[in-house]
């Protein structure tokens, strides 16, 4: 489906309005729907742009053939920012709203997160333009984007998710969050390379190299993810402080959370590690597609794992919202040449 830039913007606004109506008027129950939707898709949208920025900073040629595809998602950061505003109608999902503090108070919560998402969009726009026009400043703007990306994803972790279980806190939680966003950014890069290969677009040899390199990075990030996750668990386990252990206590003792935890470790660590260990596997379209899709599913389960013990979800409307988000995501990828007119 080919759309002009204007039509893409109109479709995006329509989708925002539909999700907004679902969240504010139509939906019954399912307080955690919007939070799950935003925390999952914000990682998927900011991650690929961060991968492009990291390649720009390190002058990595490996992502060059797929740079346009990676940058195609940057306008969706604005989409997430606008959707986030609907959270202001659901602030009662946070228990801290009963006794508000300097940091945790409704108006500051909404304003700082909204401003940071807007800033993230603005810097991503500058980076996309500088990178596509091959300006000298592209590296500097890439560093700036990575900086904003890390703060934005960290704030998503601390404000949106961690404060759900206030006063539980973990200093490693934000690091895991932005690292996961980068991890799924690589999975999306690998999937986009596979789609490009299937559609017989671009230079086959170059795109295949991108797929192999993305798979190699995913293999490394699987290890890094496991290290961080285990690091967080070990510190809490060893410290054994009741208000810290309650987070894992609930999730390791009761079904379906304990099964979900096992599944997350299997999907985000064991499968990518074992599956992508050989060189042949990294060059196999089937293996890389399978692992990449699994990593995306793993991230969704992980976000569920954080939200589900605290907030109920409405499965029907959640599926509708995810279909809408997937459609928008696909439309931006499909119409990337329209999206990236900024380089002309």
């Amino acid at each position, binding site marked *: 489906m080919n759309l002009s830039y204007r039509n893409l913007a109109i479709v995006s606004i329509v989708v925002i309005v539909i999700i907004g109506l679902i969240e504010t008027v139509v939906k019954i129950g399912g307080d955690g729907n919007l939070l799950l939707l935003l925390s999952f898709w914000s990682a998927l949208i900011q991650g690929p742009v961060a991968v492009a920025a990291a390649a720009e900073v390190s002058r990595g040629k490996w992502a060059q053939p797929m740079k346009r595809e990676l940058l195609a998602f940057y306008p969706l950061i604005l989409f997430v920012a606008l959707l986030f505003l609907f959270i202001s109608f659901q602030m009662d999902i946070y228990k801290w709203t009963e006794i508000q503090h300097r940091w945790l108070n409704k108006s500051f919560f909404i304003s700082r997160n909204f401003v940071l998402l807007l800033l993230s969009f603005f810097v991503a726009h500058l980076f996309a333009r500088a990178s596509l026009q091959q300006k000298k400043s592209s590296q500097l703007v890439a560093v700036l984007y990575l900086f904003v990306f890390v703060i934005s994803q960290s704030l998503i972790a601390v404000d949106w998710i961690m404060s759900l279980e206030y006063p539980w806190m973990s200093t490693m939680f934000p690091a895991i969050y932005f690292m996961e966003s980068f991890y799924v950014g690589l999975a999306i890069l690998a999937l986009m390379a596979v789609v490009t290969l299937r559609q017989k677009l671009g230079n086959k040899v170059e795109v295949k190299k991108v797929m192999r390199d993305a798979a190699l990075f995913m293999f490394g990030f699987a290890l890094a993810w496991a290290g961080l996750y285990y690091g967080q668990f070990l510190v809490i386990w*060893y410290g054994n402080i009741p208000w810290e252990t309650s987070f894992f206590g609930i999730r390791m003792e009761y079904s379906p959370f304990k099964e979900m935890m096992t599944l997350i470790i299997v999907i985000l660590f064991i499968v990518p590690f074992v599956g992508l260990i050989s060189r042949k596997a990294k060059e196999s379209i089937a293996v890389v597609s399978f692992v990449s899709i699994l990593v995306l599913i793993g991230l969704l389960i992980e976000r569920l794992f954080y939200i589900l013990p605290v907030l109920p979800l409405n499965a029907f409307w959640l599926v509708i919202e995810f279909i809408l988000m997937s459609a928008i995501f696909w439309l931006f990828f499909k119409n990337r040449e329209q999206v990236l007119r900024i380089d002309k």
Partner: protein
Amino acid sequence: MKNQYRFDEKHQFLEKLENLIKDGVSSKKIITYTPYPVHEVEHILKVKASPLRFFTLIGALAGLLFGFLFTIWASLDWPIIRGGKPIVALPAFIIIAFELTVLFGGVISFIGYLLLSRLPDFSKIQNPEEYGNQFVIQIQDGETR
């Protein structure tokens, strides 16, 4: 007698290598020297994967197993409750098991490398000629077909 081709550019070197293989030169008779690892050479010459990886795998698995068995045995042999944790506290043992996985994997890989390279016979790996930044193709026995 040896035939030698020297190139300053990587793409010229790879092009020549591909042409030599297409012309029917046996990959077994080709030796290449590059200033840095060029993975395309392995694809063009269809080099078989080195058995070194099995040394690494066996070493890593041995390290992992030893790491867990040793810590469990040591804890059971001298049972002291620390921080209210069980005697056999697996989360804490993972670090030692991981470190030993890396250590054993590394050391046994190095031993495997020495064995497979028939070292310390340095004459086998030392080339008296120095090529600097050049990419070099050497064909043994002067075969140019």
